[in-house]
């Protein structure tokens, strides 16, 4: 059961279920799978729409959403996170369908300034861990909608 993949906990870009999410992020787009027939998002991604069985396509969304909840992680639960703590990991309900919650880092905001429902927008930053030298993956993160774009650094 142990994860043997050498680049863990970076995302596995070869995982077909989630590869389009990261391919889109590399183009600075937030994409979410949606069933064309049901016009409903299928999140988390599944091979088939749970309602009708169709294969969902991926659609680009605005990247805007509302902060639903979050944790300020102070203890590194994996060695990869030791240099990163403290950081904010949160759930963002996307504007197109608030039942779709995207998990990511909340950046460019003091933890104490966060509040439920806070408008946020996706930004795209390279994610790298010291435990996985030489590798980085561009991922969506969220920053306050009214905050200026950060200096373009990592999730911190």
């Amino acid at each position: 059961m142990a994860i043997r993949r050498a680049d863990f906990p970076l995302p596995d870009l070869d995982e077909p279920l989630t590869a389009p999410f990261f391919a889109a992020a590399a183009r600075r787009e937030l994409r979410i799978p949606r069933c064309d027939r049901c016009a409903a998002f299928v999140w988390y991604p599944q091979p088939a729409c749970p309602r009708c069985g169709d294969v969902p396509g991926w659609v680009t969304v605005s990247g805007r959403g509302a902060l639903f909840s979050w944790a300020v992680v102070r203890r590194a639960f994996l060695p990869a996170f030791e240099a990163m703590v403290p950081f904010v990991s949160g759930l963002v309900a996307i504007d197109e369908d608030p039942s779709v919650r995207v998990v990511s880092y909340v950046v460019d905001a003091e933890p104490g300034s966060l509040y439920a429902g806070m408008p946020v927008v996706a930004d795209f930053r390279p994610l790298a861990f010291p435990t996985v030298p030489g590798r980085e993956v561009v991922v969506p993160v969220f920053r306050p909608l009214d905050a200026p774009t950060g200096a373009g650094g990592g999730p911190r």
Partner: protein
Amino acid sequence: MDDWGHAPDLEDVAGEVAIVGIGETAYTKASGRTAREIGAEAAERAIADAGLEPRDIDGLTWSGAFADFDAAAFHEHFGTSHDLWTSPWGGGMAWAGTAPHLAALAIREGRARHVLNVFPVAWATQRASMTGGPGEVHAAQAAKQNLEVPFGWFPQPVYFATIMRRHMIEFGTTPEQFGAVAVAARRHANLNPDAVMHGRPMTIDDYLASPVLADPLRLLDSCLISDGGAAYVTTGIDRARDLPRPPAVVAGVGEGYSGTGTNWAQQRAFTSTPQVFSAPRAFSMAGIAPADVDVLTVYDPFTVVSLMQIEDMGFCPKGEAGAFVEGATLHHDGGVLPFNTHGGLLSHAYVLGIAHVVECVKQIRGTAAAQVPGCEVAVYGGYTGHMASTLVLVKDR
């Protein structure tokens, strides 16, 4: 709002069977023992407590998810070879609450007469060698491995910190209210010499001063990691009355499922558990109301999970558990709702619910360390993220 999960229809087995034997190993930090060894010891003690011999056991429910103590392990340990009716849908977690239902059906259908349910765990030992633990199962799932773990939303303390914060946002729950759950559990553990945290008193100030792992979740909101195991024997009610121990009669069983499984991030009712679906079914089968419950044990990996289940099982309105648990509410001696009277996963041992059911049996027998006077109805609330279970045990009349 209540369509985010469901409850399967379970056959009514009220009063048909009873738990007649319980067995426990020592509950410890890393012991160096395997789960299989621990399971065998618990089984041996439960069978002896029931006044039975290993060859009398003709049914075995165990955890297919953990696969530590199956029929082969049973026969190897006891040197037996007789036919065993078995089901891998027993063991601990939510299944510690539903195994008696499996046993009741097997007994009704004549497949078995005495059914043993066993659950051992050696996560403290395994964690020391980095070969197992609660996070691993989750990290292996594709969606979680790629859409949660890389974003620091892992493992369980981070999930439940996020759920805690949402409970605070929606209902105004305070740190002191979460702390009341932890302090009550520790108070009970200090009355129970078997508890891992026996002899380690804790005050609300200790709770508030404990390290924050993932704000708002503190170390003392969190369960232990332990080695240990327990087992119990279920048999038909008539047979139960011939055996030496007072029967703990199975009066009601319920099961509930979340439509989003263990993907907590996507569960629509984010601050609820599938007890919403499970508890009403079990209470209805037993013909009781929440107010009839003398002692409640719930699967308590984090304090917020206790608060949510207390609400979802109907002991107080949704969102009000914070205020409900303040003061002496949860105490075994005079509280409105004596709760996790052995100390729970927080302060007794992290053996994933099996000791909670054993504690309910002890309360019905009148032999618990922190005994609730005159206890006649004891309820276990099981929780496994995607699933909840409810087991109602009553004194034989």
